[in-house]
């Protein structure tokens, strides 16, 4: 039975966590709206006008009472989305305008046609416009490390553009509230033997998103968190 495009859209939820993205969030969401109808936005305790901006769109706006971290925001988004039994497909999408809505569409269709549990976007398979060399090197190193800790072979381990089917979404159980969640997602894929694929996606680095990007130093925190959790068996 082939799903029509519209039927797929009705059953797809897009989850967008954001912290202090007031300048860009309205544009990001409105650029998604032609392609997706069910957008769930999580304001992670922003101190700027992120929430107001998001309320101007058609997205459902959830707000954390205080800043809890992107991992926690994603989890909240998934918890909320999973409440609706109509949703079969779940897309995670970055708030800062780095992702292309058309890539998300492509990934959802691929997930369905290939009957996969997870589809991951990879900037190293596709176009990474304006990616600085040091950041590129750091990302590649991060990929190696994440592949080692999650025992998954990916080309891009920290891409926020991902698609999950309901089965995968229900198994995520993201317990890391901060940026470590990215590694935990990959670990879950391996842990539950979920079928997955990576698709090339375009990441657009603008001056805005580069300024806001994760600092290289934060990798130290992530590394420590992962090792600590592995040692205490909470991973």
């Amino acid at each position, binding site marked *: 039975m082939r799903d029509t495009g519209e039927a797929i859209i009705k059953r797809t939820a897009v989850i967008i966590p954001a912290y202090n993205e007031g300048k860009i969030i309205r544009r990001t969401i409105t650029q998604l709206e032609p392609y997706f109808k069910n957008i769930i936005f999580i304001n992670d305790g*922003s101190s700027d006008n992120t929430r107001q901006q998001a309320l101007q769109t058609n997205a459902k706006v959830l707000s954390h009472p205080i800043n809890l971290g992107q991992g926690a925001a994603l989890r909240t988004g998934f918890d909320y989305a999973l409440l609706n039994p109509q949703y079969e497909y779940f897309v995670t999408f970055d708030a800062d305008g780095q992702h292309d809505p058309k890539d998300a569409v492509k990934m959802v269709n691929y997930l369905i046609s290939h009957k996969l549990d997870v589809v991951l976007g990879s900037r190293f398979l596709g176009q990474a416009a304006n990616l600085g060399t040091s950041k590129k090197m750091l990302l590649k190193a991060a990929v190696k490390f994440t592949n080692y800790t999650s025992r998954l072979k990916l080309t891009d381990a920290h891409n926020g553009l991902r698609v999950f089917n309901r089965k995968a979404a229900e198994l995520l159980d993201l317990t890391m509230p901060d940026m470590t969640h990215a590694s935990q997602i990959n670990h879950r894929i391996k842990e539950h033997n979920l079928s997955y694929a990576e698709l090339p996606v375009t990441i657009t680095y603008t001056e805005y998103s580069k300024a806001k990007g994760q600092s290289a130093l934060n990798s130290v925190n992530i590394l420590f968190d992962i090792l600590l959790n592995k040692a205490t068996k909470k991973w």
Partner: protein
Amino acid sequence: MVAIQILLIAGIGFLLIWFFKSPSSSKMRAWKKIFGVLFTIVAVGLVLFPQSANDAAHAVGVGRGADLLLYLLTLAFIFGTLNQYVKSKQDEQRIVELGRQITLLEARLPQAKRSSSKQ
């Protein structure tokens, strides 16, 4: 290898294992209290019988009682720091869960109005 080296390394190893393997439980808390009381007794004993520190030090291959005390103090400090860290991580988990539940409850109320308007 001098006795003190073995004791200290074993002590550090034990602390690390203890912290990273056992979750906080009433058993743990009881042991920590017992440890605290013993520590106090030893501390008072050392004050009343300062020579005992030197005797104990010589017994494990350390020159002076003060040095032995310093080594033990270091272990105690590591213990305290690790304890703090683990507790703080546990607190963080609870706060995050509380925050998320509030968010979800609010989201499911029709026209939920926020009393504290924090943007």
